[in-house]
């Protein structure tokens, strides 16, 4: 059985180490926060906050306190607030240890596409291009194939890029792959998924 959304998030949480400052994208990456356990992780929200807390209790929502997905959230004892220029200074400046992001396509050279599909409604890249260009480590969490069964782990991206050669690790429902010299290396397969199944679902070059 491939991993489900929560299992993918739990696997992604293993990437995080004590003391890290981390930015989580929207979708499955947001769920990663549920699996950090006892690790001392500080979440950054690029609209201007370090130390993002959980959603508020009903009736305690504050319109002045939202995350980058515009959702109401809460602060923690460690929280700090700052402006958008400062927020992206820490992102671009490499102070954020890791970003965990969703993707439409990833290529074997680390190229990432996750912001636009030509001919479809384009909403914008938000902070994704800055994040992938600046943070220490980029981990992509996504389904291995699209709804037509085509691989999203490609030799070359077909969609407009968010960043060139920026991805370090890919976590999918089928397993974990690292971007290395010459292609991707299999780190592990999801429980119940064979290496042959993982290879068959991957268009990108897999190196040993």
């Amino acid at each position: 059985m491939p991993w489900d959304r929560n299992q993918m998030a739990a696997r992604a949480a293993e990437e995080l180490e004590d003391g890290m400052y981390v930015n989580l994208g929207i979708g499955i990456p947001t769920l990663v926060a549920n699996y950090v356990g006892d690790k001392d992780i500080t979440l950054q929200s690029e609209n201007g906050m370090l130390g993002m807390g959980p959603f508020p209790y009903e009736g305690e929502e504050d319109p002045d306190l939202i995350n980058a997905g515009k959702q109401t959230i809460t602060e923690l004892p460690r929280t700090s607030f700052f402006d958008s220029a400062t927020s992206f200074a820490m992102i671009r400046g490499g102070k954020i240890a890791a970003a965990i992001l969703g993707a439409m396509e990833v290529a074997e050279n680390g190229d990432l596409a996750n912001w636009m599909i030509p001919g479809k409604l384009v909403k914008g890249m938000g902070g994704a291009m800055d994040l992938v260009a600046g943070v220490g480590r980029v981990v992509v969490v996504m389904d291995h194939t699209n709804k037509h069964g085509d691989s999203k782990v490609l030799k070359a991206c077909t969609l407009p890029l968010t960043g060139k050669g920026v991805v370090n690790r890919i976590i999918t429902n089928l397993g974990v792959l690292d971007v290395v010299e010459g292609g991707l290396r299999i780190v592990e397969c999801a429980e119940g998924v064979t290496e042959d199944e993982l290879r068959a679902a991957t268009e990108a070059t897999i190196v040993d």
Partner: protein
Amino acid sequence: MKKVYGSADEALDGLLFDGMLIAAGGFGLCGIPELLIDALVKAGVKDLTVASNNAGVDGFGLGKLLDTRQIKKMMSSYVGENAEFMRQYLSGELELEFNPQGTLAERMRAGGAGIPGFYTKTGVGTVIAEGKEVKEFDGEDYILERGIFADISIVKAWKADDTGNLVFRKTARNFNPPAAMCGKVCIAEVEEIVPRGSLDPDGIHLPGIYVHRLIQGEHEKRIEQRTVRKREEA
């Protein structure tokens, strides 16, 4: 030094002209200059270029200026929450210049700091780099981005003193300081204007030198995505 005005209409008087460039603070609907947007609608100034991270929602925030077709061009990083925006954009009535969010913030900050251009690695190798100078520093490529010099800035803060020193609240700070910095004239709307001397000088987020006109008023502060957790989960 008289910075405090009686209303948003008065605070914008004499500053507006068709085709002008306006930098606006806010992220989503958080920390947006609601009162000044309403005053711009009332003033009817048109062919505006607006540098703002987002474009409001239908009928609120910058969405109001889209409904009245006063905006010619948006410079933004994310515009997904507004059907009227998309309709005007797809029909060719509205120009859109996508900026990565950090690039937009830095373009504003740079403009306010007297820096006409800067190199960044954000967007290298993407459509954002098309037509921009690429320069190599220490073996890595960077692209040239321009500072934004706006005709006016419209921003929202929590508190101000009468000299224009501003204090923001939580994540409502967002684009407001860089937007404020890059305008030739900055108009700030706040929830409360307090007498000079009553704000802690060490706690000022944006010094009054960047703020030329001030108004106080009531804000709706609409929530875009209300998300909560249940008490029993605690």
